[in-house]
């Protein structure tokens, strides 16, 4: 969780919610959350949350690549 909030503090383009999955089960179902931490970005990108910072950024950049690249 900390990393997402750090990214939000660092960048004006990022906002980050910590969502307690047990309190909002309908969201956990919506995003098919089976284990935590689980990161959902812009509704569509899903990343396993408990990974090192460089790996998260690499996965994020990969997911943000335009489809034609």
């Amino acid at each position, binding site marked *: *969780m900390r990393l997402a909030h750090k990214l939000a503090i660092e960048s004006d383009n990022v906002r980050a919610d910590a969502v307690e999955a047990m309190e*909002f089960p309908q969201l956990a179902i919506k995003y098919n959350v089976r284990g935590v931490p689980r990161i959902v970005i812009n509704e569509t990108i899903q990343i396993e949350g408990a990974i090192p910072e460089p790996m998260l950024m690499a996965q994020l950049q990969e997911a943000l690549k335009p489809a034609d690249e």
Partner: protein
Amino acid sequence: MPLLQDKDKEVVETRFQEELVNPVRLVNFTQALECQFCAETRQLVEEVAALSDKIELEVYNFAIDKEKVEEYGVDKIPAIAIIGEKDYGVRYYGIPSGYEFSSLLEDIIDVSRREVELLPATREALAGITEPLHFQVFVTPT
């Protein structure tokens, strides 16, 4: 009954004294009915805010204070926004207990200091991202 034990309060109070730099606002959205953890969340932020004069607490009713709900973009409760010199987009939905409680404290300190520790490569990558990103990180109390 307090949620934070005296010894924990002492530890947090000392950290806040040493590490908080600029004022921070905790903005809590709550309501009395049909919200299982709203009362506890409110109590928790009240206890945290009482540990430093640099932390100011604002509490709004999710059902009534529509302007504030819109201003902070809150769509569910209990919610906590951590606001510094600006709104960085840092939110907690649900009670931050267990490991998330320490995350809350670290976030308060980061917002107060207006800086975070990140790898240089992360800052560089982040600077290259121009589209808005909305992270939702699902957690459970541990």
